[in-house]
C-alpha cells in the first residue's frame, strides 16, 4: 500500500509536467492543426536556458525559470513568423516536414552549443525528502508540482476567460469570421504558437533540475506530449491536463510493477490504443466526435 502511494505521488509530479507539455501541444496541434515535432525541442531548450541562465549569467533559480519560459516564447514566436506563416495555406504534411527539419536543427544546435554530456541544473531546495506518513517526496518535486499546477490553471484562465483566449478559440474555429470581427489573425497564430512553446519550455525548465539536461531529452518528451494530446482529445485543455496526470501515473505504475525498461513504452501503447479505439480522446462527449 505504501509502495502504491509512493508510485502515485511520483506519478503525479511527472504527470504535472506532462500536462504542461500536453497543454502546450494541444494548442498547437489541436487548435492550430500543426504537427509540431519540434515541441520536445522547446522542452529541451527550456532546460538548457535555465542551465545557461544559472551557470552563465549567474541568475538566481527563479529568475532563471522565468528567463527559460520567456526564451521558449520568443523562439516560438520567431519560428511561427519566419517558417509557419508563409506556409499557412499549405497542407498539414508540408508544415510537418518543416517542423521535423526544425526539430533536427534545434537538437543538433543544442548539441553543438552545450555538448553531449548531460548537465545537472542546481536548485536551492534542500535535498532531504519530506516524509508524509508512508510517502516521501523531495521538496523540489513539490515545487515542480505546484508551479505546474499554477501554470495549468493560468492557461485555462487565459484560454477561457480573457479576450485573447476568446480570440484564439474564435480564430481556430472559423478564421474568416474571426477576421471579419476584427481579430488580427496573424498575431493570434504567433501568440498561440509562442504560448504553447513557452509551456513546453516551462516543463523543461521544471523537470531539468529533477533529472538532467541533455540534447536528446526532447525526443521522448515530444512523443509523450502527443500521447497526452491524443489521450485528452485534440484542443481539449482539461483533457490534456488530466491526460498528462494519467500518463505520468501509468508510467510510474508500469515501471514499478511491470518492468522499468518498458516505462517509455506506456506512452507509445497509449497512442496506438487510443487512436485505434477512441480516436477522439478519452474524455470526449458524444457530440464532440467527428
Amino acid at each position, binding site marked *: 500500500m505504501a509502495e502504491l502511494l509512493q508510485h502515485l505521488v511520483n506519478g503525479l509530479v511527472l504527470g504535472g509536467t506532462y500536462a504542461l507539455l500536453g497543454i502546450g501541444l494541444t494548442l498547437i496541434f489541436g487548435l492550430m492543426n500543426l504537427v509540431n515535432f519540434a515541441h520536445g525541442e522547446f522542452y529541451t531548450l527550456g532546460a538548457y536556458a535555465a542551465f545557461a541562465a544559472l551557470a552563465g549569467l549567474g541568475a538566481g533559480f527563479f529568475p532563471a525559470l522565468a528567463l527559460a519560459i520567456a526564451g521558449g516564447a520568443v523562439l516560438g514566436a520567431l519560428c511561427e513568423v519566419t517558417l509557419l506563416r508563409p506556409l499557412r495555406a499549405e497542407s498539414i504534411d508540408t508544415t510537418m516536414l518543416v517542423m521535423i*527539419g526544425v526539430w*533536427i*536543427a534545434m537538437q543538433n544546435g543544442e548539441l553543438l552549443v552545450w555538448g553531449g554530456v548531460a548537465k545537472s541544473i542546481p536548485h536551492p531546495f534542500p535535498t532531504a525528502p519530506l516524509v508524509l506518513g508512508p510517502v516521501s517526496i523531495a521538496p523540489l518535486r513539490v515545487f515542480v508540482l505546484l508551479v505546474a499546477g499554477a501554470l495549468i490553471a493560468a492557461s485555462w484562465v487565459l484560454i477561457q476567460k480573457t479576450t485573447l483566449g476568446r480570440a484564439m478559440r474564435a480564430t481556430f474555429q472559423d478564421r474568416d469570421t474571426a477576421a471579419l470581427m476584427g481579430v488580427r489573425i496573424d498575431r493570434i497564430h504567433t501568440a498561440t504558437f509562442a504560448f504553447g512553446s513557452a509551456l513546453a519550455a516551462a516543463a523543461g525548465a521544471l523537470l531539468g533540475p529533477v533529472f538532467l539536461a541533455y540534447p536528446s531529452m526532447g525526443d521522448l518528451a515530444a512523443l509523450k506530449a502527443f500521447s497526452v494530446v491524443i489521450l485528452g482529445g485534440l484542443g481539449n485543455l482539461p483533457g490534456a491536463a488530466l491526460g498528462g496526470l494519467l500518463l505520468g501515473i501509468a508510467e510510474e505504475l508500469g515501471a514499478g510493477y511491470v518492468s522499468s*525498461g518498458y516505462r517509455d*513504452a506506456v506512452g507509445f501503447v497509449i497512442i496506438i490504443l487510443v*487512436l485505434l479505439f477512441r480516436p477522439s480522446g478519452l474524455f470526449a462527449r458524444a457530440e464532440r466526435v467527428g
Partner: protein
Amino acid sequence: MRGAARAVLALLALTLPFWVGNPYYLHVAIMAGIFGVLALSLNLLLGYTGQLSLGHAAFFGIGAYTSALLTLRLDWPVWPAMLAGVAVAALAGWLIGRLALKLRGAYFVLVTISFAGVVSLVSVNWMELTNGPLGLPGVPAPALGPWSLRGKDAYYYLVLAAVALAYVVCARLVRSRIGRAFLALRENEPLAESVGVDVTHYLVLAAVVSAALAGGGGALYAHYTRFVSPEVFLFTYTVTMVIMVVAGGKGTLAGPLVGAVLFTALPEALRLATSWQWQMLAYGVLLVLLVFFLPRGIVPAVVVRAEAVRRARRAAE
C-alpha cells in the same frame, strides 16, 4: 537521348568497382544502394499513396534482426534468412496497415512512430532474444555457391541487384492498375472510393510491399555490417529516408534513388569538413529549405526544366 543517358548510368553503376579503387568509396556506394532500397520503399507509401510513415526504421530493423537471428541462433543459411527478414517485415507491415490505415495524416504518422518506439524498446529489453543494447556480432556474410560475398566488390553487386529488383517491383506496381488506384487515393480519396477503389485493400497492399522492401534493406544491411544492434531502429534512419524521398522527388521512380545517392554521398563529403553535429544541423536546415524552395523535389524540377529547354529549342527551329 534519354535512352543513351540511361545506358551510360547503367554502365557506370555496373563497372563502379573497377574504377573505384578506394574501398571507402565502395562502402559509400553500398550504403547508397541500401538506402536506395529504403527510399524506394518509403516512396511507395509517401509518394504514391500519400501516407507518411515515420516508423519505417522499424521495418528496416525487423528485417535486419530477423535475418541476423535466424542465421546466428538457428543456423539458417543466409539467403533463406534474408527472405524470412523480408517476409517478417511484410507481416509487420500488414499488421500496421490493417490497424492503422483507417487513420489518416498526423494520426497515421503517430501510430507508425509509436510502433517503431515499441519495437525499439523490445530490441533493447528482450535480452534473451536480442542480446539487448550489446547487439548481435558475427552475422555471417552471404555466399554464392563456393564464392563468399564478404568482400566489398561482391557485396556491391548484390546490393546493386537488390536496388534493381526493388526498382522493378516499384515500377511494375505503380504502372499497373494497382498503381493507378494508389494515385487515385492520394489525389482524392472519397472520389476514388466512389468509383469502386477498395481503400483499405490498396493502402494495406502498399504498406505490405513497402515494409517488405524496407525489411530487405535491413537484411542487406545486417549481412553487410555483420553486426545488428538496437541502433537500427534509430529515428535518424527514418528521417534520412524521408529526406531522400522528399529531396529526390516523391511520387517519382527515379527521385528516391537520386535522393539516396545524394544524401549518402553528401554527409560523407561533409564528414571530412565538419563534425557530425554540424552535419545533422545542416540536414535539418536543408529539409526546411527544400520544403520552401523545391517542394516537389529534384527530379520533377529537372524534368520541368528539361521540358522547358526542349520546348524553347523546338520554338527556335
